[in-house]
């Protein structure tokens, strides 16, 4: 597999404000990679640098080993879709889709036919003569996608294309984007702040926080093996305990927990709330806790507990999620059991 996109130590500052602090990312050709992060993390800036719309303060961008830094936006083998559909108001839908063909030096002769084919692909057949204002948000975004694909890009850049759409449409459109990606030979970078969106459609996720690439991995790794506290928290892990590794156990303030794997370093332990279980009796891998409160989360129940620390006078908070609808009482003593191979030691604290 060759490298589709290589982002080599990209740094970017706006004035004295650093936005990207040395990003390294290699995207395998043909993959769909999401750049995920909360707003202001620099993900859009990174995408704009890949597109050439923004100039990096330092670092390089390569497409298939070819340096892009000195290539202007319009000459890069890209196409980009923004959050807003940005259909050109003076043109019809068909003219919008044909834009890249007409702007090229040698416009092909069968433009109308190719436009119609592309509109069929995005499930808008016969829309060529309509005007941008007559379409719904989802339709506009599909036209925008069709217009981008018409350029036959080597790299497709999507900058939160679904954020402006309502929830149901978003789910439909993200699957559609995956389908489209698979039917073209291209590498796709998909910027989003929606964790679920990234998890569902990506081959890999690049998670960014405050201008730093925190983790770059396949989606399931962000749940099972988060590399930092921020990643664990962002992907919904509510129990992160500090402590030290002692042999094959992890010593926390409230006691020691058995580990399923050998870890050489790390001072944080991630235990996902849905991997913990409430048991009536004591078992080999369990600890005792006191119920503080509980609430329904969808069809499950989330129980907030406390464990008295053995090393100091404070208490450690633990969240357990259970699908058992039992009647819990405040201050009730319960046992929380875990399976050692589901615990994960994080080696970076930030």
């Amino acid at each position, binding site marked *: 597999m060759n490298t589709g996109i290589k982002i080599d130590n990209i740094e970017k500052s706006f004035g004295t404000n650093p936005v990207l602090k040395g990003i390294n990312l290699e995207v395998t050709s043909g993959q769909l990679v999401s750049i995920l992060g909360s707003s202001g993390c620099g993900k859009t800036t990174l995408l704009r640098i890949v597109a050439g*719309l923004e100039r990096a303060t330092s670092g390089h961008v390569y497409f298939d080993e070819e340096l892009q830094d000195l290539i202007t*936006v*319009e000459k890069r083998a890209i196409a980009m879709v923004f959050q807003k559909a940005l259909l*050109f108001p003076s043109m019809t839908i068909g003219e919008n889709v044909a*834009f890249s063909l*007409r*702007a*090229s030096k040698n416009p092909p002769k069968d433009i109308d036919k190719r436009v119609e084919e592309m509109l069929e692909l995005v499930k808008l057949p016969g829309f060529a003569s309509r005007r941008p204002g007559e379409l719904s948000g989802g339709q506009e975004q599909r036209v925008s996608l069709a217009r981008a694909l018409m350029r036959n890009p080597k790299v497709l850049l999507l900058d939160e294309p679904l954020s402006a759409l309502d929830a149901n449409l978003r789910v439909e459109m993200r699957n559609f984007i995956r389908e489209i990606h698979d039917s073209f030979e291209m590498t796709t970078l998909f910027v989003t702040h929606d964790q679920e969106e990234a998890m569902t459609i990506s081959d890999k996720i690049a998670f960014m926080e405050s201008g730093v690439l925190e983790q770059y991995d396949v989606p399931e790794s962000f749940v099972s093996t988060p590399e930092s506290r921020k990643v664990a928290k962002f992907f919904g892990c509510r129990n992160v305990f500090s402590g030290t590794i002692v042999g094959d156990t992890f010593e926390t303030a409230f006691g020691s927990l058995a580990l399923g794997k050998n870890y050489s370093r790390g001072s944080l332990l991630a235990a996902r709330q849905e991997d913990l279980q409430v048991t009536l009796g004591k078992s080999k891998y369990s600890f005792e806790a006191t119920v503080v409160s509980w609430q329904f989360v969808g069809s499950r129940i989330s129980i907030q507990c406390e464990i008295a620390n053995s090393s100091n006078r404070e208490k450690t908070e633990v969240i357990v999620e259970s699908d058992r609808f039992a009647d819990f009482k405040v201050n009730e003593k319960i046992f929380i059991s875990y399976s050692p191979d589901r615990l994960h030691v994080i080696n970076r604290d930030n």
Partner: protein
Amino acid sequence: MKLIFRPLFLGIFIFWIFFPFLSIIIWSVAAGWRFPDLLPERYSMRGYAVSFDPNGDILRGVITSTGIALTVGVIATAIGSAAGRAIAMYNFKMKKAFQFLVLAPLIVPGLAVTMGIQILFIKYGLSDTVRGVILAHLIPTIPYVVMIMSGTFANFDRAYEEQGQVLGASRATVLRKITLPIVLPGLAVSFLFAFVISWSEYILTLLVGGAAVKTLPMVLFAFLRGSDLTLVGAASIVFLIPPLILLRFTSKHLVGRSSSVTGLGSV
């Protein structure tokens, strides 16, 4: 009461605006119109015959004025649009000072400036030339274009241009196919303003063009002194026609139906 007042006020308003025109229209076809008469005794087309005489001053004035006003319209719209875009969309050093300088001609009396400019114009051989008059007319026209276009560009989403670029369009193509169609209403209104201001400019033309550049207002002033009111009437009607034709094609952009011209915004 409302039913009576509305047509009444509308009537007064229309009368106020159009009554002077009415007397000009009548004068232009009157062969003699003395004081107590409500209407002229006799009518004649002499005024128009003189106005459209191919060798007459009026028709030549129309041609000179049209040429100058069209040129001024194009140049002022081009320069003013660039300045308006800069003011609306970019931040740069001394922006406030730049804005003030661009708009200063609206505040500083043009006459005072022209007196100074005239000396320079004489030095560079621009005095008494059409080129000189065109340059002088840019002084009062550019500020209006800047005001209109900075409002237009304040409402223009630069993302459209970026969208064009990421689809492979060069800067020139983006400007021609994306930006210009979007800001077209602003350009049309700017051109109208610049044309009309240049078309009716008298003092600047007089000072810079001297007797050599005879625009229509210069000719009209000469006739006014001659007290041939039939001729003045006809010439005035001729004077009105080109701006009205232009207004006919740009008026749809003036009445706020177009979202890109929102008053004289942002400055």
